[in-house]
C-alpha cells in the first residue's frame, strides 16, 4: 500500500520513498531531507532576472539522489536548519 506524503513523496513499507523511482529516503514518520541531494545556489538570478535577491540568500533544492526529481525547495540563509516536514507514520 502506498500513501501520499506530498507531490513527490510516498510512504511504502514503512519508508518515505521517492514517488518517481521508489528510492528509500527515510523511515516513515521521520525527516527525509538529510537523505536527499541538496542543490544550493544563490537566490539572486535563480529564476531569472527578476530574482534580485540579497547576496546571502540561498535557494535550496532537495532532490531524489537516485533519479534527480525535485522534491522540495527552501529559501534560506547559510546555517539555517532544514524545514523538516514529517507526516505521521
Amino acid at each position: 500500500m502506498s500513501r501520499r506524503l506530498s507531490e513527490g513523496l510516498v510512504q511504502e513499507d514503512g519508508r518515505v520513498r521517492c514517488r518517481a523511482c521508489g528510492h528509500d529516503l527515510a523511515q516513515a514518520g521521520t525527516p527525509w531531507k538529510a537523505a536527499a541531494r541538496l542543490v544550493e545556489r544563490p537566490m539572486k538570478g535563480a529564476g531569472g532576472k527578476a530574482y534580485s535577491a540579497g547576496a546571502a540568500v540561498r535557494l535550496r533544492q532537495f532532490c531524489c539522489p537516485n533519479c534527480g526529481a525535485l522534491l522540495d525547495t527552501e529559501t534560506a540563509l547559510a546555517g539555517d536548519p532544514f524545514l523538516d516536514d514529517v507526516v505521521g507514520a
Partner: protein
Amino acid sequence: MDPITFSIIRHRLFRVVEEAVITLKHVSGSAITNEGHDLMVSLYRADGSLLMGGVGFLHHLTSAAEACKAVIRRFSGRIEEGDVYLLNDPYTAALHTSDIYLIAPIHHEGRLVAWSACFVHVYDIGAMNPGGFSPESPDIYTEGFSSPGIRLVERGVLRQDVFDTLLNMVRSPEMVALDLRSMIACNNVAKDRMLALIHKYGVATVDEACAELIGQSERLLRKRLGELPDGTWRSRQFMDVKGEVHRVELAMTKAGDSLVFDFTGSSPQSRHAINCTQWASLGGLFAPLFPLLCYDITWNEGVIKPITMIAPEGTVVNCRRPAPVSVATVGAIQSVNNAACATIGKMLSASELYADEATAVWHANHFAIFMFGRNQRGGQSIGILTETFAGAGGARSFADGIDVGGEIPNPISRMANVETMEAAFPIRYLFRRRMIDSGGPGRHRGGAGCELAITPHDAPDGGLHYVVSGKGAEFPMSDGLNGGYPGAPNSYIWVHQDEAGGDNRDARFAKALDELPGRKEPVTWGVFPLMGKDALYVRWNGGGGYGDPLEREPARVAADVHANLVSAEAAQAVYGVVLQADGRVDEGATAERRKTLRRGRLLTEAAE
C-alpha cells in the same frame, strides 16, 4: 433545530453582513475601501465570539472578536443600547492603529444579544508619516492615537467631544470623519437587520440557530482535520528592513482533529514597525485558513476552536509594548499569512483527498506605497498605490497561479486604472505590465507579478513624496510548493534621471527600467521624493510555483516565453526547455538539456 428555519436564518445572517459592507462602502466613498476592499464587517455573539465573518481583509475576523471581548471586559455592566465603541490599540486587539474597529452592541428588549464590528483603514491616524504606515516611528507612541476602548456613541448619541478630540489628532480630519461615520452607519444597518431577523423568528430561535451555526462549523472543520494526515509541517519567512533580517518561523502540527501553529524560533521584536502583537498573529494565521480549509464552512467561532497558537512573547509575532507595529499588516502579519499558507498547502498536499486544494503562496509582499503632495489641481492628495492589491496567484496542483490574480487573505481586492491614478495624482505612468520571470517556476508556474514606473507630471511643486515600507526586496516571500520555486521578490528603485545629464528625450517614454538613464537607487523604507525628472520603478512579487520545473510541459514553457512571462534564458536554465529560432520547442535539445540538469542535481553532495 428545524433545518428549514436554520437554513433561512443562516442565509439571512450572511446577507446582514453583506448589506452592512455595502453601507460601509457607500458612506465612506474612499478609494482604499471601495477599490482595495480594505475593510471588514462581522457579527459576534453576546460574549464576543465570532458568529458570521464577511469577505474582507480576513485577518481582522478574530481580532475584532478580541476587540469585542476587550470592550465587554472594560465596560462590563455599563454597556447600553445604542452605544458604539472605538478600539484601535494593537496591544489590546487591533492590528495597527490605522485599522480602527467600531464595535456596537445589539440589544433586544434591553438584553444584549449580539455585536457587530467593522473596520476600515482610515485616511490618517496622526502618526509620524502620513497614511497610517509609519516606517519612521520608533515606537507605538509615535504611531498616532490609539485607544484600548472608548465610547464614541452613547445610547445613540455621538459623543461630539470624543469625536472632535480624535479628529484633532489626524491629518485630513474630514476624511477620517467620513470613515468613522461610515462605520457607524454600517453598524446601524447590521443592528437593524439583525433585529428584524430576531423580530421575525424570535430571540430564542435565532440564538439557537447561532449556536448551531457555530457548532456546525466546528464539527465540519474537525471532521476535515480528521480526514487529513497527522504531521508537522514547517515554514520560514524572512523580512529585511534596512539591512536587518527578521524571521517568522512556523511549525504547524496536526494531530487528530486539532491544529497547532507554533511560532517558536521567530526573531526577537524589531525596532522597526514590522512587528505584530499576538492578536494580530492569530488573525494572520486565520486569514489564509478560512479560505484554504473552510471554503465551504461558515467562518465563525467554531472554526477557531480546533486551532491553537503558540507565539513567544517579545518576538516579531508577539511584540511587547512599546514596540512599533504600524507596518504590521504588510509586515509580520503578512509573513504569518504566508507561513500559514505554506504549511496548510503542504498538509493538503499530503492528502489524496485534498491535494487539489493545495496552493503555493500567493502575493506574499504588499508594498504599501502611500503618495502625498500637491496635485495638478492645487489640492492635496494622499493615497495608496493600489497596485499593491493586484497581487499574484500561487500555483496549484492542477493549474498555474493566476497572473496578477490577487491574494488569499483579501479575496476580492482590485487595483485602479492608470487613468484613475493619473487623474488623482500629478504623475505619469511609463509602463505597467506583467513582469518577466516573476512567477515562481514549477510544473505549474506561479502567477506573474508586475512592474511599473511613474514620474512626476504637471506637479505644481515639481513632484510629490511617498512613504514606502517595503521589506522583502532581499528575500522572495511567496514560497513554492512541492519543489516549485518561490516567486521573484519585490523591488523599488529610485531612478535619479536628473543626474544623467543631457535632455534624455528618448527616456521620456522609456519602456523598461534599462531604458531609464541615471543612478538607480534601491529604496525600501522611509519617505522619499519623486521630484523633477525622478522616476520610481516598482516591481511586485510573483506567486510561488508548484512541482518540479523540469516536469513542466515544454509547450507551456514556450508559450510563456512567447507571452513574455518567462525569458528564453530562464526557460533553458530553470525549465530545461530549449527553443528553436521560430520559438517552438526543440524537442531533442530539450530532452538532452533536462537530462543534463537532472544529472547535475545528482552530482551534488548528499545534503548532510
